[in-house]
């Protein structure tokens, strides 16, 4: 038993070490890119260091949606389903949350109104995720394509809402946004981090992570997700219902995405803004990948990417380095992670080539 634990611990450590190496390599490459372009080479590293120390508030603000999106991705990934529609589900959740918040009576209890707003967002996100899930289960439609395309529908739908039925007619300028939400539906910000918009959504993210971890390792649903992901034929043969499991993971994923929408609206923007989401869904893929699709790891990789994003924004404000550099870092991380699949095959070849050269 003890031995087993040790093995597990060393396994986790070696994976963590590998991922940290990936980060270091990508930062070095990004710094080289900066240096070559004539900027201060260490700007991005400084930005991250600041993001993890003096400016931790901004990091927490960005880490919250990134962790949750990462969790939304990692749930489906375990079942070998690919939900590229987190962004769309997030928008739908934000719209439903906003609609609920605006419809609630002004003087309602703060906690109860927040619960109602979040429930509306969660249900909307899950329902929107059901569209590609049902298409996959009943018509064998590839969910990669359908989830991706549904994102555009969601984005344009929000555009329509904030220019039509939900438009803020009191605003003088032509702002593409809904009315400001009543204060009793605002998700509290963390006062310690004032004046940043870091909010208690971070705690929600941690709770969701704990829930997902519990589902994965302690519940029958978790076992079914694992089996469906590793061998759907076996799952069917053993009497499980792979189709139902796929619907379940997509619903969970969509619900988490909807929650991100609600958090962004109720804690950060306080209104529904068109295009408020800077592709959290796609960033979530990178977050989950870097965490090796482990829910606990997602928290750490979410914080790292939060620091990166935050650092990038600060960097742009304080120096003339464009924040797009953060995207370069992300891209390099994706490439180095993909190299994980290539390296083991490459190693023997390199060794053989060396031998031959001698």
């Amino acid at each position, binding site marked *: 038993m003890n031995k087993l634990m040790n093995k597990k611990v060393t396994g986790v450590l070696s994976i963590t070490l590998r991922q940290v190496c990936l980060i270091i390599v990508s930062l070095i490459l990004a710094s080289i890119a900066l240096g070559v372009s004539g900027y201060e080479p260490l700007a991005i590293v400084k930005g991250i260091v600041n993001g993890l120390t003096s400016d931790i508030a901004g990091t927490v603000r960005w880490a919250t949606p990134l962790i949750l999106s990462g969790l939304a991705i990692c749930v489906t990934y375990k079942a070998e389903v690919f939900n590229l529609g987190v962004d769309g589900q997030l928008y739908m959740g934000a719209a439903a949350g906003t609609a609920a918040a605006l419809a609630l009576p002004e003087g309602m209890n703060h906690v109860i109104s927040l619960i109602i707003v979040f429930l509306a967002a969660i249900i909307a996100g899950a329902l929107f995720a059901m569209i590609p899930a049902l298409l996959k289960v009943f018509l064998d439609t590839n969910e990669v394509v359908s989830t991706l395309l549904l994102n555009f529908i969601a984005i344009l739908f929000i555009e329509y809402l904030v220019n039509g039925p939900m438009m803020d007619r009191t605003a003088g300028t032509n702002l593409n946004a809904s009315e400001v939400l009543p204060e009793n539906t605002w998700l509290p910000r963390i006062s310690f981090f004032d004046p940043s918009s870091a909010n208690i959504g971070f705690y929600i993210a941690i709770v969701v992570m704990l829930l997902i971890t519990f589902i994965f390792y302690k519940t*029958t649903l978790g*076992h079914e997700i*694992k*089996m469906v992901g*590793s061998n759907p*034929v076996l799952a069917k*043969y053993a*009497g499980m219902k792979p189709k139902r499991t796929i619907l379940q993971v997509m619903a969970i994923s969509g619900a988490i995405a909807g929650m991100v929408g609600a958090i962004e609206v109720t804690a950060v923007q306080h209104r529904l803004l068109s295009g408020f989401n800077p592709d959290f869904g796609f960033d979530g893929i990178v977050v989950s990948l870097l965490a090796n699709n482990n829910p606990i790891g997602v928290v750490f990789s979410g914080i790292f990417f939060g620091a990166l994003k935050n650092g990038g924004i600060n960097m742009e404000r304080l120096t003339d380095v464009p924040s797009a550099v953060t995207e370069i870092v992300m891209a390099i991380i994706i490439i180095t992670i993909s190299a994980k699949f290539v390296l083991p095959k490459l190693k023997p070849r390199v060794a*053989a080539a060396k*031998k031959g050269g001698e």
Partner: protein
Amino acid sequence: MELAVEMLNISKFYPGVVANDDVSLAVAKGKILGLIGENGAGKSTMMNILYGMTKSDIGVIKVHGEEVKIDSPNTAIKLGIGMVHQHFMLMPNLSVLQNIILGKEPVKNGLIDVKTAKAKIQEIMDAYNLPLNLDEKIYQLSVGEKQRVEIIKSLYRGANILIMDEPTAVLTPTETDKLLEVMRQLKEQGCAIIFITHKLREVMAITDEIVVMRKGVVTGSLATAEANTELLSNYMVGREVNLEIPGEAYRPGNTILEVKNVSALNQRGLPALRCVNLKVREGEVVGVAGVEGNGQSELIEVISGMIRPTGGQVGFHGKDVTNDPVRSRREAGMSHIPEDRLKMGTAKNCSIRDNLILNRYYQKPYSKNGIMDNKKLMGLADNLCRDFQVKTPDSARALATLSGGNMQKVVFAREMEADPSLLIAAQPTRGIDIGAIESIHRKIVEARDNRKGVLLVSAELDEILSLSDRILVMYEGEVMAEFKRGEADERKIAEYMTGAKRQGGDSNE
């Protein structure tokens, strides 16, 4: 007698495992060496070393008397060593010709010289009596023909030393006979062949020398003339093996399974079963013989609930279960050992434990309100590993770390633990070694003697004949004949298997 290949004092270590320990073998020109042993005995490692896919830690290889270093399959091919893999290395969408010349195309003016290639291949085909249509695409060929392509491919590259890795595992009896004939031809032309197999009969029929391996060491090395199957199986498992397992007298009881007029389609939507009727009663083994692909898979899938029949009924303990889901049938006492343990029976990236608990993970007392008791499940898995002698240091290890025989033990353990009243066993001993075959046959007989019903589907006639109380023969989705134990021999069944005959009238073809 000139030695073609010598492998001297080969040792190969993997972390924690000694794959080969001081193994030596040699094969002369124009001779066939049989290399036999259980799964995991180290045969494949030896051949991978010879073919340059891996390197030995200690030891010397000599080809035609000269010491050589083989660091890649390319080097091996240059030395005249060819390998016919168990899983074919062919491009299904290319023609036979294209597959054979792939990577070694004769070139004329910068273009592939098809004429020269064809002539050269024709020469080989004539010399070894290996007829093939060069323009056919690989996917159109039967398994036996694909194997012929592999052999020609090796010969085309100038191989005079052939490694054949379990070449008969995928062949029908007739195809096997043809292959053995080809091997004899190759031998006469001066090829040296290393023949890896599980089947002792074939070893006895074709080889000149035999090397037996067990757990990485050579346990026996002798001339075929001095060998017999009993002696060889003793060398292989290190103890007496008895495949004749005595059971109790045949006393069938109540009907457990009744399949009535069942018809079904295969995955491509073509009729696979036509009006099949069969019964399995308590305390009997019903064997279904037939060449693979004649509806056996669909029959099992209909019975186990994985596909719905287009007509007919499945009765289980007197209840119509035709439209019941898989899980309710399993809970009612149906267990199923699938024909393909990797595709259907296991998840190889999950742990051995995860694979063992599939029937129980959601049931009390292992689970309550959807929350699993991991401790109890761990205990269940560890007990099963012990009771069914799954060789692993830890059930938390990935299933892929097990050998084929041990994987099958995992499947068997899981399915028997459910205490089934009906056991469906499809190809239960495919690709596993003789020691594991014996223990699995024993378990089947034990289940029968414990008044359970067993439906045994197998392409191995030996297995069907030795275990079944009644034998059904299937051909093109129909039951062609039914025999009681002792009524039929291999030859008689083969006639019905190929559709040449049917009981109660001639074939309708």
